[in-house]
C-alpha cells in the first residue's frame, strides 16, 4: 500500500515536472497555443525571414517588430502603397484578418522574449 502511494507520488511528481518543464523550457511558440492560426500562417514567412522571424542574412528580421508595423506594412504591400521586390506579390495572398494574425504572432514573440 505504501509502495503504491509512493509510486503514485513519483508519477505525479514526474508528470508535474514535465508540465513545468514544458512551460519553461519549451520554445516560445508553444505558449501561444490559443493563436494556432496565426502561428501556422507565420510558418510560411520564416522560410525567408528566418526561424522565429530572426534572419541570419539579408532578409529583413521580423522578430522584435511591433504588430502595428508588420500589419501596416503588409496592408500597404497588398494595395501597392508600398513597393518591394517580393512582398507585394506575397501580401496579396492574405486577407486583412490573416495579416492581422501573422502580425500579432510575430509581435507576441517579442513580448515573450521580453518577459524572460
Amino acid at each position, binding site marked *: 500500500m505504501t509502495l503504491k502511494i509512493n*509510486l503514485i507520488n*513519483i*508519477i505525479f511528481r*514526474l*508528470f508535474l*515536472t*514535465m508540465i513545468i*518543464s*514544458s512551460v519553461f*523550457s*519549451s*520554445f*516560445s*511558440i*508553444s505558449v501561444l497555443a490559443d493563436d*494556432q*492560426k496565426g*502561428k*501556422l*500562417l507565420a*510558418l*510560411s514567412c*520564416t*522560410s*525567408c*525571414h*528566418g*526561424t*522565429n522571424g*530572426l*534572419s*541570419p*542574412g*539579408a*532578409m529583413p528580421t521580423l522578430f522584435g517588430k511591433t504588430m502595428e508595423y508588420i500589419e501596416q506594412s503588409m496592408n500597404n504591400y497588398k494595395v501597392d502603397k508600398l513597393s518591394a*521586390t*517580393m512582398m507585394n*506579390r*506575397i501580401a*496579396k*495572398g*492574405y486577407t486583412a484578418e*490573416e495579416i492581422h494574425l501573422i502580425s500579432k504572432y510575430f509581435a507576441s514573440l517579442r513580448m515573450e522574449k521580453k518577459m*524572460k
Partner: protein
Amino acid sequence: MKKISRREFNRSIGTFGTFTTLKTIGIFPSILLAAQRHVVVVGGGFGGATAAKYLRMMDPHLRVTLVEPIRNYFTCPFSNLLLGSLKTMEELTHNYDKLQQKYGIRVIHASAVKIDGASKKVTLHDGVELTYDRLILSPGVDMRYDQIENYGTDDIRDIPHAWKGAKSTLILHKQLEAMSDGGKVIICPPPLPYRCPPGPYERASLIAHYLKRFKPRSKILIFDAKEQFPKQALFSSGWEKLYGHTIEWFNRSAGGLILKVDSKNMLVETEFGKEKGDVINIIPAQWAGKIARDSRLVDKSGWCPVDQLTFESKIQKGIHIIGDSAIAGSMPKSGFSANNQAKITAANIIALLNEKEVTPTSMANTCYSFLAPGYAISVSAVYQLSGNELVSVKGSGGVSSLKAELSVRRAEALYAQGWYESITNEMFG
C-alpha cells in the same frame, strides 16, 4: 529563440532514465507513455531536416529520429552557382550536428530500405528496425532511366545529371572547366513535374556567365522536353542582355525532346537529328525517391498521393509524405515548398497525436533564380486548399517585373542569398 541548454537536455535524459526504471519494475503508466511518442523522419533534406527540427521545437517531449544516409548534405538550391564557379562545395554543404546537439534529435546516418505501414516499422539497410507513432517521409526525387533510349545509370559518369548530390554536380563542374574555348554545352531539361522547375534555365545562365569569363567563343544549346518554361520572358530577355546569342533554346516542337543518347561519342539524338556536345547535361525525368516507390506509396504517376491538408498518405495511414515526392496540388517541387510543408506537417502531427483537429492554413513558395552574379529574378505564390487541392490564391504571386531596373535585379540577388541563409538555418541551424 531559446536554445535547449545542456542542463535542460540532461534533465530530459534524466526523465528518460526514470522511465526506464519504471519500465523495468513493470510499471509504465499510459499517460507517461503518451508523452514519449516517437516520430521518425526519413530523409534529411529541405523537408525532413526542417520537419525534425520543428517537431522538437513545437513539442520538446516528442522523441524524434531522423534517418538520412548522407553526413554532409549538399544543397541542390545554389548548386548552379557552383557550376558557374561562384560558390564552393564547402559553402553549400551542411551537417546535422546542431539538430542532434541543440534540438535533441536522434540522427541515424543510414538508408531506410523498407516501411511497413501496418506495423508502423521502418527497416534500415543494416537490419535495424525503428517503430513509430507517426512517420514523415521526405525522400526527394530519383532520376528515371527508362525514358530515353540507350541512357542509363552507366552513362551518368560521362553525361551527369547534376540534379541531386555533390558527386554528380562536381563531375559536371570539372567537365566545364576542362572544356576548351569554342566548345558546345548541351543542356536537356526534363518534362514536368520535376524538382525545381526554373533550375535548368538558371543553370544555363550561370554556365553562360562562366563561359563569358573564361571561354567566350563557346555556346549553350538547350534541348527541352517542354514547350515552354518558367519565368521564360525574364530569362530570355536577360540572356539577350547578358550573353547575346550564347544560349539557344529549342522547345519540344522544335526538336527539343531527346530520344536517344550515345555517351561514348557524346551525342544526343532528337527527332531532327544528332547533335554532338563537348559537355552534355541531361536532367532526366523524375519520380518519387526509391523508398516511397519500394514501399508502394506512389500511384501510377510515380509520385505520392497525399491528403493535401495533413500530407498523410492516401495509401497508408500514419505516414506523412512531404516535399518533392508528394503530389501537392499547384505547389511546385522546390526547397521552399518542402520547408513550408514540413513545418505545417510537424504542427499537424502534434495536433493528431494529441487528438486535436488539424487547422487548415495557407502555404507559400518563393523561388529565386540567378542569371548572373548580382542579377536575379523570382517567382512566388500563396497556396490554399480549394476542395481537396492546394491552389494558388487568386491575385497573389507571380514573377518579377519584366521592366524592372537593374537595381531590382541586384536587390533580388541579395535577397536570394538571404533566402539561402535563412532556409539552411531553418534546416540545420
